[in-house]
């Protein structure tokens, strides 16, 4: 007996809410550094700020031991340019990344990560995460370096992307935070930032929070605040029955909404990507050759192998060549970095003409991932090390499949049977979506070389910053932002709470306890907002559609939003998430209206402005909510190398990083 239905059918009454209900009861907390979001970025930020001597409070919406989009594990550690085996320096690496992102990426974030990703991994190792093959399980493999025991991924020659045993990453960080005396406030979602001052002198003085189990209200005062709440999900594609999505459905954008309403500046909000949502298959749990499964042979129903090719389309003769750069290629970047593939950076891949060759009958469906064709150590690296430590694979894939009898030594895992066009990329588990189904792109806050936002006292880390993604990026940027926030906090004092702001916020977030008219549940409301975004801000955008989206969202705010109801604190949390989606949706629509050109890099298609990345639109268009509506400006791609900053990545980093420099 496990489900609610079974419980009731056993003759028991409907159980009361299991936690004390404390709607509106206020608790005030103070700290030096407040970290909003206790995922990977927030945890590293907390550890780093605490080590720098600050009193630290992490406010986490769920449970910090395993929470966050990266909390369920990690197999690749990317951008580890300073590891002792790396053959790519942080400057060369970052310049490649920024160039291949078309310039639309965050220079300070990418460079900080290239400099500190390896150090962040060493921090994890000290907390008990295994990063070396001391047991010699992979001895003799091409991807293993014997002196350090490090294992490499994607590019075995250049060695800046590593393979790690990160299934216990989050419990290790959690243990580290507790040991250092970081205060953890679990099951509390941040709902707004408290601010003082106006215009350019506005500063963040704290935040308000809602306890997701009791409904209690928190007012938190802090000397410095870090936004580490990750990427909003559920904005376009919300199934009323989740059935598993690639991104953690708890990341819904209340951090983004809080920052937006406080006047924080964002970039790349107009970007979104194709999403198959709940039509996707189990991540890494069906036949594929992507990311964690990179390099796996794919064969057709008759056992005929699909060729792998290099950047010039030359077929590769051996499995080893899948992991070495092409002739004349400096290095390959691999998957998971959120960098578009370029001629210079691209990884070896399955022949991209596979869809046509399937249509012609050259390859017969179903396809299979045939690990048996790989050398034992490569096979074990994929199904054992990578699937076994990546987020949502240890139990959902490795344990589930092996218990059901799957054996990678003798079995082939079937690739889902889909429209032939779906086989153009080896990420076969992502399935097939619809053009109106989108997911959040690289939108996030604009930061300077302190990873500080435009508001004094507010820093950012991980997915909250525009551009980059990935676990190691969250870790390294958290590590850096934590240091900078602690440094700021050491020289400032706490502000008084603006009682009007707190009262206004309280009225807003508890409104679903007394809904107006016919009560609307949070799921229907979420799906409704998603439908507006699908219709008005799907793959193909236009002035008319975007304006109509703004009009409908404004109307929804007046009408349905007042009817959203909540029967318990859990539903209240979801209702407040959905109210935040109205703010986030409006920000995205405004940002989309502000870019009157299409962009390949931003996966942004305006049917009324079809020209792709024209020179005059090759810039960032940061947007913030001002006193009388959205304010937009032009920001050059290399803003981080122009005054008041210095002209090179290295000089800026060294002037700002707050670390004693070696050599």
């Amino acid at each position, binding site marked *: *007996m*496990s*489900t*609610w*239905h079974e*419980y*009731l*059918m056993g003759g028991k009454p409907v*159980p009361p809410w*299991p936690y004390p209900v404390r709607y509106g009861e206020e608790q005030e907390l103070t700290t030096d550094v407040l970290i909003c979001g206790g995922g990977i970025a927030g945890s590293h930020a907390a550890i780093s700020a605490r080590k720098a001597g600050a009193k630290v409070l992490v406010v986490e919406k*769920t*449970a910090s*031991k*395993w*929470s966050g989009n990266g*909390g*369920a594990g990690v197999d690749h550690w990317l951008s580890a340019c300073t590891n002792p085996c790396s053959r790519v320096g942080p400057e060369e690496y970052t310049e490649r990344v920024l160039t291949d992102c078309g310039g639309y990426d965050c220079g300070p974030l990418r460079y900080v990560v290239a400099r500190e990703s390896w150090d962040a991994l060493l921090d994890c190792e000290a907390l008990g995460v*295994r990063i070396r093959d001391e047991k010699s*399980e992979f001895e003799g493999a091409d991807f293993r370096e014997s002196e350090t025991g490090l294992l490499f991924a994607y590019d075995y020659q250049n060695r800046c992307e590593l393979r790690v045993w990160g*299934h*216990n990453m989050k419990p290790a960080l959690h243990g580290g935070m507790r040991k250092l005396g970081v205060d953890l406030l679990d*099951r509390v979602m941040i709902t707004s930032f408290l601010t003082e001052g106006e215009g350019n002198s506005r500063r963040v003085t704290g935040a308000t929070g809602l306890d*997701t*189990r009791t409904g209690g209200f928190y007012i938190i005062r802090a000397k410095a605040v870090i936004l580490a709440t990750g990427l909003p999900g559920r904005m376009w594609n919300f199934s*009323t*029955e*989740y*059935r*598993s999505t690639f991104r*953690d*459905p*708890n990341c819904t954008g209340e951090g983004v909404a809080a920052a937006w309403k406080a006047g924080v500046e964002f970039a790349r909000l107009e970007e979104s990507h194709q999403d198959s949502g709940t039509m996707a*298959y*189990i991540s890494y*749990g*069906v036949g594929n050759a992507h990311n964690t499964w990179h390099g796996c042979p794919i064969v057709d129903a008759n056992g005929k192998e699909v060729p792998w090719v290099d950047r010039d389309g030359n077929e590769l003769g051996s499995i080893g060549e899948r992991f070495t750069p092409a002739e004349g290629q400096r290095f390959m970047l691999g998957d998971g970095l959120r960098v578009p593939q370029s001629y210079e950076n691209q990884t070896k891949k399955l022949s991209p003409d596979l869809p046509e060759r399937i249509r012609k009958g050259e390859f017969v469906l*179903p396809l299979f991932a*045939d690990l*048996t064709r790989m050398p034992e150590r490569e096979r074990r690296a994929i199904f*054992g*090390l990578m699937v*076994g*430590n990546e*987020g*949502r694979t*240890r*139990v*959902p894939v490795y344990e589930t*499949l*092996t218990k*059901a*009898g*799957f*054996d990678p030594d*003798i*079995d*082939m*895992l*079937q690739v889902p049977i889909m429209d032939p066009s779906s086989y153009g990329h080896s990420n076969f588990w992502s399935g097939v979506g619809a053009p109106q189904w989108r997911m959040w792109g690289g939108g996030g806050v604009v930061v300077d070389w302190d990873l500080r936002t435009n508001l004094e006292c507010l820093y950012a880390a991980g997915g909250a910053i525009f551009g980059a993604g990935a676990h190691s990026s969250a870790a390294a940027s958290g590590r850096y932002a934590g240091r900078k926030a602690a440094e700021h906090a050491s020289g400032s004092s706490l502000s008084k709470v603006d009682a009007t702001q707190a009262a206004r916020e309280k009225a807003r977030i508890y409104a679903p306890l007394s809904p107006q008219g016919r009560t609307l549940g949070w799921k229907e409301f979420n799906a409704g907002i998603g439908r507006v975004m699908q219709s008005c801000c799907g793959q193909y955008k236009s002035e008319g559609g975007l304006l109509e989206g703004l009009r409908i969202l404004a109307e929804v705010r007046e009408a349905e939003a007042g009817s959203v109801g909540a029967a318990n604190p*859990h539903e209240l949390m979801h209702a407040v998430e959905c109210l935040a989606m109205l703010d986030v949706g409006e920000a995205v629509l405004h940002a989309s209206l502000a870019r009157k050109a299409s962009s390949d890099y931003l996966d942004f298609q305006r049917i009324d402005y079809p020209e792709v990345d024209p020179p005059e639109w090759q810039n960032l268009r940061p947007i913030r909510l001002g006193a009388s509506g959205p304010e937009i400006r032009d920001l050059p791609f290399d803003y981080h190398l122009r005054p008041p900053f210095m002209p090179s990545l290295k000089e800026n980093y060294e002037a700002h990083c707050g670390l004693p420099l070696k050599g």
Partner: protein
Amino acid sequence: MSETLMLPNPPVPNRAVDFNPDLCNGCNLCVGICRSDVLMPNPEQGKPPIVLYPDECWYCGCCVLECRKPGAIALLHPMNQSVSVVWKRKATGIHYRLGMKQPPAPNGRPPSS
């Protein structure tokens, strides 16, 4: 037979995780860490949690990793996923599937740790 009650349809997925009442001691460690608060403590102490919100499960498997009683919690992919998890034994050409009636013997090799 239990009384016939007026109930809404079961949510989809129906259970997401399943507890073995013979192994679960109702310690609620899983309830404490579930990111989506899918699980609620059983009003009866010592009994397995109630899967109240299976429709919110992310299938991260952290409840299983957190559990101190091996086998007490099983993660169950919904049927719209398990029907696509198919493998073929090379030597025999036999197809197997997650959720099939007569599955092959388990492969006991643990993941690399």
